[in-house]
């Protein structure tokens, strides 16, 4: 726990710093690295100001400090986290600059009773700080590295005894094997770090992965042949089976984030191995989005996924990927190649790859809901039945998928078969897949020579026969891939519907902080690359300031002033419902309703409700049942008794 706390603190602290020297601590074959340029971030929002926020003040208080600057970490210099997955061990490291070594040591000593410090550890010139068997930091030359090691399961199984002999002197004081194992991991972590500090001929900053970006902004991460190594080191046999699938994506990826006024900008670059890179470039290059597809989706949709690819190149890539992924694992490469050739002989490859145009638009328009009334049976203790009217809210996702077709006749034949076999039915000028358990709304299908439209936007489908489409789209991008998610709209809907305070605070944080996310590819770039933008609600302030303040507000609402805010939330909901009830016509009011409203008003004034606002939830349920007919009450009550006549009142379900 202490270890996690420490790691967390360091991570948070470094949210605030020319980090090239930290790269020297990371080997060239590290799979993952992330850099927080706290120096740049500090210019946007000084860490001294940030730490004055309630959240950080409370954290400092919990750690018995006046301010987190008391940690001794330099919060205005870069900070890094790296992952190095070797065949024997996975190393997780946090690297930071130290402003004051004495303060730093004192800070660690406060966090751990068993703190130990060895200066000039084994003549390295660095100080080793240890607390416990496997928690250690290497301090020196103005920087510190926390490094945690985790022996890979298989390596441990095969080499633990040998390791125990090698490290006998250092671990002999530990009684149990798990303690000895922890201690070995700690020692390996120390050796690894010291080895890199003494001699790292090819640090991470010299790798091709790092060189994807000439210049970095506030936050940058790099993935260096991560996928294949991940598959090799994860201790799961089933997962390892797929290591070849992962190696299909072997390569480097990096993303750089710059914090601007009102938006977080992202640039992403991908460099796969040459064969893969050439294939992917063939899939994407020269393609542009079929903007005409937009007329099938509303302008105010929640999210769209829009792409245009070369279907033949994609088909060829899939074939190669399959060979690459499954060859050697299930059957030999040679057999797999032969099988692919057999399939190619049997299937008209050109015909298959020309079925569709490669243009696809998927849109999520939002959640639609319909309220329906139904009668439910209820009985009393003498089993006399009565009908009660209940309301059932049926929600379904409204979505539209538009697929460009090259071979309409092929799909028309499938459609005809389905029509003849009554799997599709005619409805309002389009075809309908009937509602079912998994798709409550059913789904409509419209097809013409150029495209197929699958949708639950039934109004749009019905309008197609009259030639009516959605208008007003203005998507001015020259790209072959585009994703757009309206975060604010989505979370706004969730927040308005939520009656749970904990959920509501998160939804409210999301809707009041983030506006929308846009990601698109850069087709003119000879390298695979994409750019993105996370737009904030506050367009005038730097995204870093907005985010840090929003996180602080969330913390205050959820932790420091939880009760007050929860009371406010529930009382607002109740007052809204009371107003709704009072606006009802006399015939829709009832004695029970009047009583619940009266009880709600009294509860709002009570000290108990302010102390325990959770109790107000039940009042909301009661009011909703009376006003909206929502069914929170058990549907059946019955008088229970056994066959000997012994009777007892119970409430079922």
């Amino acid at each position: 726990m202490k270890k996690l706390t420490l790691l967390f603190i360091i991570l948070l602290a470094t949210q605030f710093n020319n980090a090239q020297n930290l790269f020297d601590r990371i080997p060239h074959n590290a799979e993952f690295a992330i850099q927080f340029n706290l120096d740049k971030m500090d210019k946007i929002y000084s860490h001294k100001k940030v730490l004055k926020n309630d959240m950080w003040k409370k954290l400092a208080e919990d750690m018995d400090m006046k301010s987190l600057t008391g940690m001794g970490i330099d919060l205005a210099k870069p900070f890094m986290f790296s992952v190095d997955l070797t065949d024997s061990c996975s190393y997780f490291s946090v690297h930071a600059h130290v402003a004051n070594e004495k303060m730093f040591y004192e800070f660690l000593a406060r966090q751990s009773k068993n703190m130990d410090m060895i200066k000039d550890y084994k003549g390295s010139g660095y100080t080793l700080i240890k607390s416990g068997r496997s928690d250690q930091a290497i301090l020196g030359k103005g920087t510190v590295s926390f490094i945690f090691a985790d022996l890979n399961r298989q390596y441990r199984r095969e080499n633990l005894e040998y390791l125990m002999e090698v490290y006998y002197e250092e671990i002999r004081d530990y009684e149990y094997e798990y303690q000895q194992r922890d201690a070995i991991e700690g020692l390996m972590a120390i050796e690894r770090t010291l080895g890199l500090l003494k001699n790292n001929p090819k640090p991470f900053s010299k790798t091709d992965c790092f060189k994807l970006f000439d210049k970095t902004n506030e936050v940058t991460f790099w993935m260096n042949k991560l996928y294949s190594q991940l598959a090799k080191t994860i201790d799961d046999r089933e997962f390892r089976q797929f290591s070849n699938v992962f190696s299909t994506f072997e390569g480097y990826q990096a993303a750089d984030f710059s914090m601007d006024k009102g938006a977080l900008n992202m640039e992403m670059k991908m460099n796969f191995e040459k064969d893969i890179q050439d294939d992917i470039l063939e899939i994407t290059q020269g393609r542009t989005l079929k903007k005409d597809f937009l007329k099938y989706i509303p302008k105010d949709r929640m999210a769209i996924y829009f792409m245009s690819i070369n279907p033949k190149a994609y088909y060829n890539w899939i074939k190669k990927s399959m060979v690459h992924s499954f060859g050697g694992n299930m059957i030999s490469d040679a057999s797999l190649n032969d099988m692919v050739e057999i399939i190619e002989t049997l299937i008209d490859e050109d015909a298959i790859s020309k079925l569709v145009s490669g243009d696809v638009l998927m849109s999520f328009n939002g959640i639609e809901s319909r309220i329906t009334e139904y009668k439910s049976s209820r009985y009393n203790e003498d089993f006399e039945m009565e009908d009660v009217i209940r309301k059932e809210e049926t929600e379904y996702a409204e979505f539209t998928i538009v697929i460009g077709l090259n071979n309409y006749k092929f799909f028309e034949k499938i459609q005809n078969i389905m029509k003849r076999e009554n799997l599709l039915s005619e409805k309002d000028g389009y075809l309908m897949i009937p509602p079912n358990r998994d798709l409550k709304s059913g789904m409509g299908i419209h097809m013409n020579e150029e495209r197929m439209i699958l949708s639950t936007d039934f109004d749009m489908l019905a309008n197609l026969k009259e030639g009516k489409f959605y208008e007003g789209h203005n998507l001015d991008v020259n790209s072959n891939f585009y994703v757009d998610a309206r975060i604010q709209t989505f979370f706004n809907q969730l927040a308005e519907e939520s009656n749970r305070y904990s959920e509501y605070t998160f939804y409210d944080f999301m809707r009041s902080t983030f506006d929308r996310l846009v990601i698109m590819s850069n087709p003119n770039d000879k390298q695979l690359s994409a750019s993105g933008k996370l737009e904030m609600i506050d367009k005038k302030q730097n995204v870093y300031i907005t985010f840090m303040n929003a996180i602080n507000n969330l913390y205050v609402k959820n932790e420091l002033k939880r009760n007050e805010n929860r009371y406010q939330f529930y009382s607002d909901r109740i007052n809204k419902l009371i107003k709704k009830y009072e606006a009802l016509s006399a015939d829709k009011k009832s004695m029970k309703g009047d009583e619940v409203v009266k009880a709600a008003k009294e509860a709002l004034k009570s000290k108990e409700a302010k102390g325990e606002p959770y109790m107000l939830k039940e009042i909301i349920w009661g009011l909703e049942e009376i006003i909206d007919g929502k069914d929170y009450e058990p549907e059946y009550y019955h008088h229970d008794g056994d066959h000997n006549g012994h009777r007892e009142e119970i409430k079922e379900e």
Partner: protein
Amino acid sequence: MKYLLIILLSFGLHSCFDIIEEINFNENGSKTFSYKINLGKYKFTLDNIIKLDSIGKFKIPSEDEIRADLNVLQGKLNKIEGISKASCTADFEYYIFKITGSFKDVHALNKVYTEIYNFKRKEKVPLIEAYSFENKVFERREKDPKTNIFARNTFLKENQFTEGKIMILARFPNQVLSVSNLATKISKNGKAVLTKCSAAQLMKKPSTINCQVKLK
């Protein structure tokens, strides 16, 4: 009723419906029956389905067709000796289907039960003796799984038709002394018994609802 149920449930409506069977032996000497299927919770889905011609091999009956079928059934029930005032109704606003009527004795009631079961079926079954009432002992029986739609219909089974609620209710003019089924409850006034189970239980073991009721 079973025909209706099968059709309507075949479209994925495998949970949360109610079937309520009420047999009343009233103090005034009258004897009435009522079978009610309530699919109201699925109004949204049913409203969509009812507009379609067919789903797969199932032709979707229109409201008028369903009403016409119910009228035919009503006619058949009223022709049974010992049955009067039989009525088959459909409420498409709430999707409630009801068959009610009066019976002279349980033999007539068994004929009603068999007629409903055989309605619209090619293979008719002989008289199902689902009820008996002799010497102040009432019995509700489901002996043969073949006579139970839930046990027979593999479509319903395959579609995990499990959560429908079944309520079997009987009222008597006299006090109930004992019931043989541990799951059967006696009302507070001691004059009614209720057996509840899910469709899944009924499919697995039709005798779940079997109960012998001894009266004072």
